[in-house]
């Protein structure tokens, strides 16, 4: 479904990703784990078109997308929940959600998706007319995910959704991801929360300073010395 082929991405000529390749098959949950500054966010930003690689290419559903602007990529079915939620704080919850469906035409279909989303996140329906900035951290994360789902993506990418949340909320977020996955949405998850991310993943990659150093199924990676020592402290 998504093929990232030897991409190199720089900020002002300084490479943040050297030669990163990985693939995602339809229906999978793929996790990329790595510590702060490894280049996880850079990967997602490059896929969603906020950044463009200086070398290599990205294909989605058979089409090259590494030169396309974000609004075309959203339209093709990739949604990106950015790090730090980035909800529109001065707009209401429901206004945020409708902006998530910005690329879609039919009002009826949008309203239908909204109902599905309220079933998945009842708290958002309760708070529908509240300013998004007044929500708690966990609620804001739910809103950020819900907003991305409003575009009816084929591939949902999440950048550290558990960041800054209390443990109980972290497991809630991961449960939600499972539910979303069961609805048939392919997921690319980027996390520092290594254990949960690997437990959830069909396929996983370890990223270190802009290079993928390890790959395998989530279970396989949980058994490796590198992961156990460097990320799980065992």
């Amino acid at each position: 479904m998504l093929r990232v082929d030897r991409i190199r991405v720089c900020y002002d000529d300084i490479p943040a990703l050297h030669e990163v390749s990985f693939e995602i098959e339809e229906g999978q949950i793929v996790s990329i784990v790595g510590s702060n500054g490894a280049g996880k966010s850079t990967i997602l930003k490059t896929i969603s078109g906020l950044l463009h690689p200086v070398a290599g290419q990205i294909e989605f559903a058979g089409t090259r997308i590494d030169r396309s602007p974000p609004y075309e990529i959203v339209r093709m079915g990739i949604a990106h929940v950015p790090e730090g939620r980035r909800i529109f704080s001065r707009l209401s919850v429901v206004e945020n959600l409708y902006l998530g469906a910005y690329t879609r035409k039919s009002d009826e279909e949008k309203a239908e998706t909204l109902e599905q989303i309220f079933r998945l996140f009842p708290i958002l329906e309760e708070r529908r007319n509240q300013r998004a900035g007044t929500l708690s951290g966990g609620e804001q994360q739910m809103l950020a995910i819900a907003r991305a789902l409003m575009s009816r993506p084929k591939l949902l990418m999440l950048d550290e959704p558990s960041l800054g949340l209390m443990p109980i909320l972290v497991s809630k977020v991961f449960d939600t991801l499972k539910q979303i996955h069961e609805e048939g949405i392919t997921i690319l998850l980027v996390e520092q929360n290594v254990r949960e991310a690997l437990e959830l993943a069909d396929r996983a990659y370890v990223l270190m300073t802009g290079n993928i150093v390890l790959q395998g199924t989530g279970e396989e990676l949980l058994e490796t010395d590198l992961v156990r020592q460097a990320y799980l402290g065992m």
Partner: protein
Amino acid sequence: MLSQLLISGFLMGLIFSLVAVGLTLIWGVVEIVNFAHGAFLMLGMYATYWLYRLLSIDPLFALPICTILLFFVGIVTYRLMIRRVLTAPMVAQIFSTFGLMVFLENMAHFLWSSDYRLIKEPLVHGRLEVFGLFISKPQLVAAAGAMVATGLVYWFVTRTQTGRALQATAEDKEAAALMGINSDRMFALAWGIGGACAGAAGVLLANFYFIFPKVGDIFNLTAFVVVALGGFGSIPGAFIAGIIIGLVQVLGGHLVAPAFKSVIVFIIYLVVVIARPQGLFGKF
């Protein structure tokens, strides 16, 4: 006498509001200060004047024409110039819109001379007497028009999907892009609406105000103060602050001395910038 002044200050304030709404919208979305904003207003005034002189179109009917015209002036300014300096240092951005102001003023001077012009017999003229107070009809119409225009912009920004996309872009360009919002289009739209506000204000003013190449300067400066007072990027803020500044100007001019009315406005500006840099309101 005092209530007479208050009324005229209030009416003028509503026009200040409209001018400032355009400026604050451009700043809020694109984060560039449009120093040519007053020059856009001046173009709106001249467009009205020439439609009146050459085609006998009354300013009232020129309103939609000139507003649309200045909408496109805003868009073209964005497309040809602003887009190229979006990622440039602030100084380059300042020079570009400042340069545009100088260019437009000199162009007006060259094409239409520095003569002060006035639309002599507009459809709306004369004055009303209400409870012993005299209200100039053109000023009343201008103020009402400005208020309606400000309301329309506010309605558009807060109640339509495109308007919310503008707000989203203003708050977080990158997150807005991830929603599939084309920020380039939003920037162009903000410049278009900004230009249209200045243009509409120009038409409304042309009914009773002298028209000359540098007429925009006065409104430019006032608009900056209004935007600072109302909070950079805030439409309701610009609306309220415009009225406040309109009132302060006439009162200051009356109580101290006419020559001091700009000084008082600038004292307010300094106090706001130092004491409450975010202005009276937040964005939008």
